[in-house]
């Protein structure tokens, strides 16, 4: 692949990203898919009771993660944000601890998989309840503004279904009133479990809600990590510098069922999905990197091997960890010892 002509190289709109950063984005995408598939495999093997799929969100999440300043920004994600969580610094081992519900998991095995909480990574704790985290993100952004912490911003993510929740609306409105340092990133994958976007809202463009709140709104191709990075980095920069909130909409697609407990054939056809698979962001970005000479085919193969190895190692290491015990039941209900009324 060394014979890529120079003009093709130029055609890649890299938005100021170095070769190194482009490779990092790609690695995050590969790792997300590998870990995601591993969760589903472990479920089929009967080793874990549940897994959540995020295939189709790789480009969006890896691109957004690259716009996140580690050690400064705050991420308030939702449960489909495996790639974003890895992209801002979570390790595959932490992912596997979560999938296996081990004692060493962030939540001590209390929550479903992919519900992280890490102050180290700037990742806020959240529940499985849709939109419940949006006001938390707004509250965090208010705290940043109140403490005059310029140069920091909150990135909050959600699916298209979440935009129908009242709490989403209340949060958007408040952020706009107070011009808070926050970016609302909608990962519009067209499906809320079985509910298509056409039954979720009366018009198909989420970013168009922005004007009604008095904030900028922008839509981009969520299968393109670089377009995502571009939109997110501009919005995050604006937020960090006192420019207030932005509503971003990345249009992507949910390739898998909602979770291992869902059968999407009850509400959509294989053809629907395979049609969208043709545009799968992972091979698409791989081709782009190779054609642009950022990576050779051999480098790609080596990276995939490395990602698989890392996933295997994380799986084995996490599986060997102990479960929480009944003694852990009463921990962290309140601060200090809790003597329940038994």
């Amino acid at each position, binding site marked *: 692949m060394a014979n890529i002509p120079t003009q093709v190289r130029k055609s890649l709109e890299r938005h100021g990203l170095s070769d190194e950063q482009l490779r990092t984005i790609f690695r995050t995408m590969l790792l997300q898919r590998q870990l995601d598939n591993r969760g589903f495999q472990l479920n089929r093997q009967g080793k874990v009771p549940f897994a959540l799929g995020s295939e189709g969100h790789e480009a969006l999440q890896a691109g957004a993660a690259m716009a996140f300043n580690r050690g400064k920004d705050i991420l308030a994600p939702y449960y489909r944000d495996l790639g974003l969580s890895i992209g801002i610094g979570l390790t595959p081992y932490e992912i596997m601890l979560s999938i296996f519900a081990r004692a060493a998991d962030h939540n001590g095995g209390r929550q479903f998989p992919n519900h992280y909480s890490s102050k180290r990574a700037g990742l806020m704790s959240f529940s499985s309840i849709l939109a419940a985290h949006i006001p938390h993100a707004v509250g965090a952004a208010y705290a940043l503004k109140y403490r005059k912490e310029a140069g920091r911003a909150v990135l909050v993510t959600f699916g298209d279904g979440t935009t*129908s*929740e*009242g*709490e*989403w*609306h*209340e949060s958007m*409105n408040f*952020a*706009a*009133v107070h*011009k808070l340092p926050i970016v609302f990133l909608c990962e519009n994958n067209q499906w809320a479990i079985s509910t298509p976007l*056409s*039954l*979720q*809202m*009366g*018009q198909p463009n989420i970013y*168009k*809600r*922005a*004007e*009604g*709140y*008095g*904030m900028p709104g922008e839509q981009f191709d969520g299968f393109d990590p670089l377009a995502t990075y571009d939109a997110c980095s501009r919005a995050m920069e604006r937020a960090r510098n006192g420019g207030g909130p932005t509503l971003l909409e990345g249009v992507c697609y949910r390739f898998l069922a909602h979770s291992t407990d869902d059968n999407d054939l009850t509400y959509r056809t294989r053809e629907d999905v395979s049609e969208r698979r043709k545009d799968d962001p992972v091979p698409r970005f791989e081709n782009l990197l190779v054609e642009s000479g950022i990576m050779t085919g051999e480098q790609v193969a080596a990276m995939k091997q490395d990602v698989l190895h890392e996933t295997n190692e994380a799986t084995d290491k996490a599986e060997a960890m102990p479960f929480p015990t009944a003694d852990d039941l009463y921990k962290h209900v309140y601060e200090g010892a809790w003597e329940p009324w038994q």
Partner: protein
Amino acid sequence: MTAKPSAESKFERQGLTDEQLVAMLRVMILHRTLENRGFALNRQGKIPFASASEGHEAVQAGAAMAFVRGKDILVPYYRDLGLDLGIGLTSYEVMLSLFARIDDHSGGRQFPHHYASKKLGLYTISSVIAAQTSHAVGAAYALKLGKEHGRAVLTTFGDGATSEGEWHESVNFAAIHTLPIVFLCENNEWAISTPLSAQMGQPDVYKRAEGYGMPGVVADGFDPIACYAVTKEAMDRARHGGGPTLVEAKCYRFLSHTTDDDDRSYRSREEVAERRKDDPVPKFERLLVEQGVLTPGALDELKASILAETNEATDRAEAVPYPRPEDLFSRLYEGPWEPWQ
């Protein structure tokens, strides 16, 4: 009350007859008179509470004129005295509500101006902001499901209500299902003490419509004819399968939120006085007189008849007994209720 034909061309009457124009003015003056009576009764210590809607007379009388009695459904909020009167509520019913008497719609259970009348198509509401919006949407869904063409729901709320999650959920649902409903925002710029600038990030409620996929229109809420026109157009669209509309009428709250509120703590007398200059009631009186729709003498008679009606309603309602202690347990469930005492 004969109109001078020469004056006809000077104002846009939107197809309203002289009789309808005078009926609107009557609703506006009655609205204000009853409301002031509520405040007076409160100061006299006769009732514990009254809520205010001065400044909303034009939007409410105009919107009421677009409501088809016996067909449409009104899901109002608590600041809709004029709208309720405009669709057929009587002064006596208003006074029963203010006095919390046994014959009040709610049996004296609710705050004033929380009516419920199936006869009028007037839905029961609570005092909780935006809680009624989803009920209105449910009623509109029922109309659509029953293929009751030619009927629509009119639901109202203030600017503050648009910040509630339930408002968002309801408007969104109505848009998805192309429901026969009109969302009318009476934007009076104040939610108790919270100004519009602290309520939303941009000042135009109607601009939210596009994000839901429905038309959004705005009207001068001090102009009853303009409010009638936009509401009528939206209601007609709703009645004929055209789906929902978000209508914003920009008005102003002249009084405090209620008798329990003192607005001097959060806004200046000057601000209110400045807006009072545009008071819709005298403005519409002048317009109708100038246009020859109404003679000055007829206007005086109208006011006198309204005052007499208000006095009579006040005296009559005051004489009605309160609910009794045994009414406490009635109408909690259908049939007798044996509470766990």
